[in-house]
């Protein structure tokens, strides 16, 4: 059974595709169907028990450089096992990534690892490449935030972006509060102890594991009843019967009794509308309102949801139901004429969809070459163009009078023939 070799014509090797997320990093090679590895975005220093998160926007550049360097070193030499100098790099990023983080990341790649070229691809745009469509309303439910960006005819409609800090991090915080407040721990010697007395703070890895294994998102009716019971404005609302409790072993000796009511109520924070009546579902409608009128019908019938938080059981069903309910509310009913909402199912798991789009794009070698920022260009200009600061022109010495100037970061994909 013949297998195709991983060599392009002209001997160019496949590009490396990296999706550097706040919680997890997906890395692999272009032209493959899935990332090789999904690893947590953190590094461990020898002697320290607590891992350091790599994607932090508030630390100073020196420290960020060192962290990124070590992380990318581990990616290349422990997971991908290839020479950085030989292969182009495609980095999937969020459009809200701060410029100084991008600049530091580019500096690490070019100065330390000497890669031939780097391409920053927006995650929302890449995810529609996996579906073969040109327009979609893409929602990325990640760790730090949920970000909605409409893409029409392969162009992101930047002014219509909407975001809320409701993601994995918010869920973990809520869960931590509920566990400390309501749950008890049994140890070898005693039972029914409160959580802080036995183990202090619960490590985030354990909270994440509890979330993944035991929690789910209830459907619309049940969710409303749970929210009413929580806020209990009338004093009469009764909570629906909670799912069974779970005994979660913390280590060999301690068992954490997780109350069943936590299992279905912690996810409600994603759908509870805060004072501004914003929830994860309203983001989609708010983004639609900001889009031009002619685009709305196409966008509302092509919804794409990516990101790790979207993999929670019952999330998509609840999201669709919430959107359909919200669109009948007076706020949206008169503005949005379109009432039909359809959801795509991309050919990859939601946490890898953006990566897969990048891998598809990275396999197009000619286009990748012309759209990337090469090492020579970076050495001459010393900076990487960002969508918010494209306008500083390159110095005169960069290109000759007769040749065309090197392409700056425009759209990642063009429909021009």
């Amino acid at each position, binding site marked *: 059974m*013949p*297998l*195709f*070799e*991983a060599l*392009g*014509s002209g001997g*160019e090797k*496949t590009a490396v595709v990296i999706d550097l997320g706040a919680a*997890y990093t997906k890395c692999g090679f272009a*032209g*493959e*169907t*899935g990332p*090789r*590895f999904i*690893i947590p975005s953190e590094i461990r220093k020898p002697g320290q028990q607590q891992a350091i998160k790599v994607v932090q926007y508030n630390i100073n550049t020196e420290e960020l450089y060192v962290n990124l*360097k070590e992380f990318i070193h581990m990616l290349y*030499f422990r997971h*991908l*096992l*290839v*020479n950085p*100098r030989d292969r182009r790099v495609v980095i999937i990023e969020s459009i809200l990534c701060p410029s100084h983080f991008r600049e530091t990341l580019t500096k690490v790649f070019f*100065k330390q690892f000497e890669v031939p070229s780097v391409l920053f691809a927006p995650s929302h745009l890449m995810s529609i490449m*996996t*579906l*073969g469509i*040109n327009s979609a309303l893409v929602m990325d439910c990640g760790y730090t935030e949920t970000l909605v960006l409409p893409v029409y005819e392969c162009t992101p409609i930047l002014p219509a972006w909407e975001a809320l800090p409701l993601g994995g991090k918010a869920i973990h915080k809520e869960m931590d509060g509920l566990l400390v407040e309501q749950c008890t721990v049994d140890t070898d010697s005693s039972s029914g102890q409160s959580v802080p007395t036995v183990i202090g703070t619960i490590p985030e890895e354990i909270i994440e*594991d509890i979330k*993944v*294994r*035991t929690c*789910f998102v*209830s*459907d619309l009716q049940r969710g409303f009843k749970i929210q009413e019971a929580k806020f209990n404005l009338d004093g009469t609302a009764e909570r629906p*019967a909670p*799912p*069974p409790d779970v*005994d979660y072993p913390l280590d060999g000796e301690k068992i954490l009794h997780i109350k069943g009511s936590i299992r279905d109520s912690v996810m409600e924070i994603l759908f509870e509308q805060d004072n501004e009546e914003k929830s994860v579902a309203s983001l989609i409608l708010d983004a639609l309102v900001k889009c031009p009128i002619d685009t709305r019908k196409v966008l509302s019938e*092509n*919804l794409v949801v990516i990101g790790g938080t979207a*993999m929670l*059981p*019952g999330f998509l*069903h609840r999201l669709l139901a919430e959107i359909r309910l919200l669109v009948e509310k007076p706020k949206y009913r008169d503005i949005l004429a379109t009432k039909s909402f*359809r*959801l*795509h*199912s991309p*050919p*990859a*798991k939601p*946490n890898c969809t953006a990566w897969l789009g990048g891998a*598809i794009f990275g*396999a*197009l*070698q000619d*286009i990748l070459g012309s759209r990337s920022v090469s090492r020579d260009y970076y050495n001459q200009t010393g900076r990487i163009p960002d969508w918010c600061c494209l306008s500083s022109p390159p110095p005169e010495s960069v290109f000759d009078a007769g040749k065309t100037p090197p392409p700056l970061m425009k759209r990642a*994909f063009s429909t021009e023939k």
Partner: protein
Amino acid sequence: MASLLQPNRVVYLVCGEKKIRSPLSQLYFCRYCSELRSLECVSHEVDSHYCPSCLENMPSAEAKLKKNRCANCFDCPCCMHTLSTRATNIPAPLPDDPTKTAMKKAYYLACGFCRWTSRDVGMADKSVEIIYQEGQPDRVLVFFHVTQEKYGLGTRLQRQRSGAPISSLAGLSLKEGEDQKEINIEPAQALDEVEPLPEDCYTRPISLPEVTTLRQRLLQPDFQPAGASQLHPKHKHLLMKRSLRCRKCEHNLSKPEFNPTSIKFKIQLVAVSYIPEVRIMSIPNLRYMKESQVLLTLTNPVETITHVTLVACEEGDSDDINSTAKVIVPTKELVLAGKDAAAEYDELAEPQDFQDDPDVVAFRKSNKIGFFIKVIPQKEEDEDVTVSFKIRHDFRNLAAPIRPSEESAEAVPEAIWLTHHVELSLGPLAN
């Protein structure tokens, strides 16, 4: 006083793009540029791949094909330990005589740490010892293949082989005589309805061992199964050996051997075999503004005689940022004998006669000398007393090509003088 031998006590300064201070044991020396190099200012390259459990070297072409996974070894999907193949005897009918049964061996995989076995996921016992298992999500492959064709308009043409799983689709060359075809892919269809949660989700008690943890799921990015009964073992990921290369002159500084079981190097240009090493031998009680004598040792790594001069750092030296004490170093040149491996066995060797000033040189032993420096701590704070000075020594570059000269009969390379900045951390002030 083993703490005096800790590597961080004596650091050498590396001048590269960034100034790095690092113990000599962690540095490399490029003898073509005649400069110290640290791990951060060299470029790392992947040299060879090998499996960590069967220690088999894998050529890079094969590693690329197998996606950097060993063909024979497996990892437990539950605890990531290496799986071992176990055999049981099962009665099986003989092929030629169905009525008789004979004991046949059946092999299965088992983990020695968490007691997971391949029977837990329903994998049948095999009669052949090597159990090969690999899965591919087929619908992704077909879609991927077609998508790449559409977006690769006019650049590449795929040859479609029916039934063959395509593991990588990076551009293939056009065969002669074939035209480029325009391929239409159908855009994906969005669905009106999404499957809701099953009703029993609200009432069914969970059995935690049957639900996979996030880490177990992410080990298999293509499938990410939620149930433990779908966790299939994966082939073991390979490790690699690294070679280091100087960025300026592109020469190799470190190249390991091909054989995974060997720890030696083909090329090993480490700094400890070229640069004399300073170590702290004993520190007296250090008092604020009082002069004390510290005993240091200097070791000569090469086989020729080396002359070493110590120079204190001047005022306003840009490298001298950490020192908290004044140091008075011996002004005379120190002479170090060459390293002679046979010296201890050779009883008839004449002891070499170096006139040593007893105020400066405390003792001399083959290629090592002990000497005194005077330290006057300048700061009264609680932190460690740090001194720094420059060490200047002669270096004979045996690797460089020797210019053929008409007069010289012996090929003696010329000595060049190298200067390094050294910082010592002498510990806190005594109270």
